[in-house]
């Protein structure tokens, strides 16, 4: 495959049992777009269509100058076959060729594209080396561990040097020490080779470290998108907030506010949340974001002086290292981090009615 740096412009619709996946995706040349979203949202589906493994119900996919897929009324159908697209796909399962060694798996792409045996083999060793698998080169996939297989599959996808690289959870199954290393290798390669890439992930770190832009997909629809830092810092969707590990309450702002001013947001259930505006916030839809650690939990209603204060019911609790994270039930459910001591003292348990409070200075309100 060529090493040209090309932009991706796709607009596709695919029918799925319960909904339709409809995505527009513009990835500038040499940048990385992360696609995140709940299980079954359609992330892998999008990659399958981009790779040409599945035909969309309608749509158009362009990679640089090349029209890879077109299916729209009034225009002749175009479907460049998978092998002619120069689009590489690392699927959710490693799918290593069981009859080839790790090194031969990695060399498969270059060999198939006509690279001579020696060069391809050297290249494969290089890749395995970089991913910390040098001593497994001769091993058959059946004798690799899950994480090792995943890394070999990643090496195989990278070694094929496609114009567009599609990565479906590339770092899943990697251990806590290896994941950051591989993430760095991947980042280095994507930047230096200028490969345009689309990355599906469930790990906020992947999105934060690797992606230039993030798309949040839910039931086939894009519910949030934008530069990675923005989407993660100021999520507009509940899933984006969960991924970033922050609380999000959505509502409408009545009176506009300028950057840094206090602004009040009203939810559909009539609750109000006050926070500091990030950028100018016009009247209309907006979101209030705050970290779980900023949420205080009370069992009586007369304590504290926080501006934001509302009743809730504890739904679930989970201890995270030294802290305990609890979730409340109902619409605009939020997470709150409390100390184990507080849990004991307040006798917190699922089903317990509590009151939550957040200082307005901890809440950021944004319009996105």
């Amino acid at each position, binding site marked *: 495959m060529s090493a040209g740096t090309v932009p991706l412009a796709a607009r596709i619709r695919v029918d799925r049992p319960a909904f339709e996946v409809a995505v527009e995706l513009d990835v500038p040349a040499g940048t990385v777009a992360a696609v995140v979203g709940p299980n079954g949202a359609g992330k892998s589906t999008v990659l399958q269509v981009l*790779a040409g493994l599945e035909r969309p119900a309608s749509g158009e996919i362009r990679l640089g100058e090349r029209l890879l897929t077109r299916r729209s009324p009034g225009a002749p159908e175009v479907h460049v076959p998978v092998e002619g697209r120069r689009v590489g796909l690392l699927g959710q399962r490693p799918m290593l060729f*069981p009859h080839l060694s790790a090194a031969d798996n990695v060399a498969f792409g270059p060999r198939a594209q006509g690279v001579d045996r020696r060069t391809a083999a050297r290249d494969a060793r290089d890749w395995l080396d970089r991913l910390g698998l040098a001593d497994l080169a001769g091993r058959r996939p059946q004798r690799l561990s899950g994480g090792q297989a995943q890394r070999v599959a990643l090496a195989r996808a990278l070694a094929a040097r496609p114009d567009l690289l599609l990565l479906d959870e590339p770092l899943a199954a990697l251990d806590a020490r290896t994941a950051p290393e591989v993430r760095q290798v991947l980042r280095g390669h994507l930047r230096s080779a200028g490969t345009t890439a689309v990355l599906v992930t469930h790990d906020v770190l992947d999105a934060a470290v690797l992606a230039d832009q993030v798309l949040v997909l839910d039931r086939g629809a894009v519910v949030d998108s934008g530069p990675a830092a923005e989407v993660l810092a100021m999520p507009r969707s509940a899933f984006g907030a969960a991924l970033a590990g922050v609380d999000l309450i959505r509502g409408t702002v009545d009176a506009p506010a300028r950057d840094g001013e206090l602004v009040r947001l009203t939810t559909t259930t009539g609750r109000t949340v006050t926070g500091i505006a990030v950028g100018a916030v016009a009247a209309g839809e907006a979101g209030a974001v705050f970290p779980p650690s900023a949420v205080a939990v009370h069992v009586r209603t007369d304590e504290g002086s926080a501006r934001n204060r509302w009743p809730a019911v504890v739904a679930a609790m989970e201890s995270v290292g030294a802290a305990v994270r609890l979730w409340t039930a109902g619409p605009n459910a939020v997470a709150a981090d409390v100390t184990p001591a507080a849990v004991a003292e307040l006798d917190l348990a699922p089903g317990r009615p509590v009151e939550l409070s957040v200082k307005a200075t901890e809440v950021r309100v944004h319009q996105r």
Partner: protein
Amino acid sequence: MTTRSPAAPGAVPRPLWVPAVLAVLFLLAPLAALVVRADWPRLPGAVTSGPALRALWLSLRCGLAATALCLLLGVPLALVLARRDGPALRALRALVTLPLVLPPMVGGIALLYLLGRNGLLGRVLLDAWGVRIPFTTAAVVLAEAFVALPFLVIALEGALRTAGTGYEGVAATLGAGRWTVFRRVTLPLVGPGLLSGTVLCFARALGEFGATALFAGNYDGTTRTMPLLIYTAFNGGGADQDAAVALSLLLMAVAAVVLLLVRPWRGVTG
């Protein structure tokens, strides 16, 4: 990718051992009876005679040639049948199986009708190029391939369907063209099925008798394969069963050697 070898020994349900052993007995007891009843004193003479050795050699050559022809034609056909679908393909699959039910003689008649001197195609071949196929060694190979091909195709098609197309898709995303995918992914993955199919095909070709007898004739050195020799010995005046049995044992022994050389192919996904 991390699936280990199965629950090691004992993946076979105990009650199934009974029919399995019965099956072995069913297949081998008649052969054993043949061995027991063979006329051993006369056997060495019968199996080392010039005609016997010539027939054996011809059989092996023709069997291998027919198998090669079947692989050449049958593997692509199996792939088409396994990877495409639709009513036409389904009908084609049934049609392709038909030569299997053709009684052996009739297969020979069909080939004569097609390629014989007055055959639909044979006449053209003869008039245009002066080529005559029947009653030559080529006819033996064609007759054997005609009866053996369906076995290869059907067995391989089953294996191809079982293997699925997942890995082929992966190979395509790595930029491998269909031909490369076929050579480097599809074929290796159906290794066990291909092997089974080839064994069936070779064995069937080696044992082929009816179509060959009619279409190729029974000429010593050119078209008289072992089955024909055995048939001749058997039907010769007085029904010389002993010679026929001796020659059959020779054929089986040679086939056993060939088959033993074929290493079983552990399923790569096992």
